[in-house]
């Protein structure tokens, strides 16, 4: 196995990890909601894609475009209806994290239950863009390359949005100092809802992309949420660039170990890297300590 193969496989896997985690970092970093039902909102759009593609012959790319606003609207509504009362009650203090974990934990079972009733516990899978593409003499599946490109595109785009625009500055202000943001006239709750919805749009897009090449079932959401959480914490909560970097780092590490040492050790390397980052930089790669 040559180096280009390894780099390419690492980059596509890393891109997938980063993409899975980006929505969560916005939701957790800005809205301060530890959304445990995150994985279910990744699987739900995968089912949407499955139904539209397999039963109605739609193009998965069209579903991807549809999923973005749909995911935003859904998660925005979840924030407004389910989470706003919690935010109000706790005054967005530390208690909010505990309460939101419990609330979204419940939501996890509701969404999962609905999917189980609708689709059963079976695995579902369809193929799209499962064709080889040659990159620098190495072969890679087009759908995985697409994931990497979307991850890079969304990561860079959102990074620019957050650092270069007024609304981005507002979002960052809420992320860094939610208590003081109102002093300069920022509506914290509206901004948090916006960030939460944005996270929803990202996770929905991710679900559609994942459905193109990974088999999924109604109960697989938790696995994705776990992976996302590791990447988010490694990258620094609320930091998109950190998310991208942490995802790629894990992807490269796993692929290197699988190629040159033993594929059985990928999980071990994953958690070793996670521990190392936590030991050296407890707030994550790009995180600021003691916010």
């Amino acid at each position, binding site marked *: 196995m040559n180096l280009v193969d390894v780099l390419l496989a690492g980059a596509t896997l890393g891109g*997938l990890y980063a993409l899975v985690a980006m929505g969560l970092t916005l939701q957790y970093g800005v809205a301060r909601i530890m959304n445990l039902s995150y994985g279910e909102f990744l699987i739900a759009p995968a089912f949407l894609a499955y139904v539209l593609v397999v039963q109605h012959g739609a193009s998965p790319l069209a579903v991807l475009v549809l999923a973005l606003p749909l995911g935003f609207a859904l998660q925005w509504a979840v924030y407004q209806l389910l989470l706003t009362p919690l935010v109000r009650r706790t005054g967005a203090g530390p208690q909010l994290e505990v309460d939101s974990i419990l609330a979204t934990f419940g939501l996890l079972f509701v969404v999962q239950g609905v999917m189980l009733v609708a689709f059963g516990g079976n695995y579902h899978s369809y193929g799209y863009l499962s064709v080889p593409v040659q990159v620098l003499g190495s072969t890679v599946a087009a759908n995985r390359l697409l994931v990497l490109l979307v991850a890079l595109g969304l990561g860079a785009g959102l990074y620019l949005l957050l650092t270069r625009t007024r609304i981005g500055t507002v979002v960052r202000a809420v992320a860094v100092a939610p208590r003081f943001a109102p002093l300069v006239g920022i509506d914290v709750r509206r901004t948090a809802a916006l960030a939460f919805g944005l996270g929803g749009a990202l996770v929905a897009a991710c679900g559609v992309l994942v459905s193109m090449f990974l088999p999924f079932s109604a109960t697989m959401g938790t696995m994705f949420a776990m992976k996302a959480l590791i990447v988010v914490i490694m990258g620094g909560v609320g930091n998109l660039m950190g998310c991208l970097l942490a995802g790629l780092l894990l992807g490269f590490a796993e692929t290197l170990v699988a190629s040159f040492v033993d594929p059985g050790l*990928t999980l071990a390397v994953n958690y070793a890297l996670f521990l190392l980052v936590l030991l050296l930089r407890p707030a994550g790669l790009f995180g600021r300590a003691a916010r």
Partner: protein
Amino acid sequence: MSAYSKRTWLRRAAAAAALALCAPLAPAQEAPKSVRIGWAIAKTGPNAGGTATTVTPNYQMWVKEINAAGGLMLKAHGRRVPIEVVEYDDRSSSEEAVRATERLMTQDKVDFVLPPWGTANNLAVGPTYEKHGYPLLAVNSITDKAPQLVKRWKHAFFFLGTGAQYAQALIGYLDEARKAGRIGDRIAMVHIADGFGVDLASAARKAAGQHGFTLAYDKSYPVGTQDMTPILNEVKGRDADVFIAFSYPPDTMLITDQAQVLGFNPKVMFTGVGTQFPMYKKKFGAAAEGVMGPGGVDFDSPAIQDYFKRHQAASGQEPDRFASTVQYAALQVLQQAIERVGKVDRAAVTQEIRTGRFDTILGPVQLDNQMFTNLWWVGQWQNGEFYGIAPSSKPGAKPALLPKPAWKN
């Protein structure tokens, strides 16, 4: 003395006559309203996928068909008695499976209990079945420990063989192919780092050594692996004619998909659980031509064709081509055992399962030492069906497609 004995005799005769008259009436009065059958299976959690593919459709179809015919024929009561189901979700956890099974037996007091999906959970509930004297018809459970377990568990029946049997049959079959000069002696093997994968890999490793094969690659990968490219690229460079993956459904899909993309086309490609699933057929269709896996079905058998039709009609999905047919046959065994005994008598039913000969969709089934081993060990996709190819001596066996044809994109 004689008068006394005569009177006694008369009295006894009268009593006997009265009893004989009452006899047909009395049991009819005690006939149960229903035969209660319980199951605790995974509706959620990591086992839910396998359960929904192989277990739930068969359990439900079996009950539906019996009740449509009026119920189980209990001849001791002289009538048919419908089945009533008590169901729990074990959430894929073995603790929960044990708890729910115990509850079914002691609180719900069901008459029979059907087991969950997966080797680990079948083994976890085994002691509970044994303690309460319920027959355990373990189908979705492949363990090398089965021959030892049946010595301790007099109520346990294993229907899907042992890991070693699959591995030995596969390597033995490859040996035949090598002797015929159709493949070389290098094998590349990967397995999932979990019960089923580890068992089969260690058995295959041993068998490969005995038959003089060279293992060009022999590694494991963890559950939940989302990219097989590194493994496949590595295996591609090892110049092996045979690629074996003892995998679970999601990784089986991944390996097939990515092997196709990478243009990795060994002469023999064998993937694990999932190769036989309807999802696999739906996704890969003609591209799967020549892929091998454990299990297989004799599609030329009318009973099997009929079963596939009924399964499709009852659940809207096809059965899998590995455990589904065996699962249904095991339920037929239970049904016939109960009907032969003619009443809800678990000890007698268990004894009947142990020694009886039953007529099922797989043909006649008779357990040997509480195990059923007249199975297909290796199957292969040929013209859109997953036919049994090994043991090659079994009636209905198809000759293998070797070498595997190129991927059709």
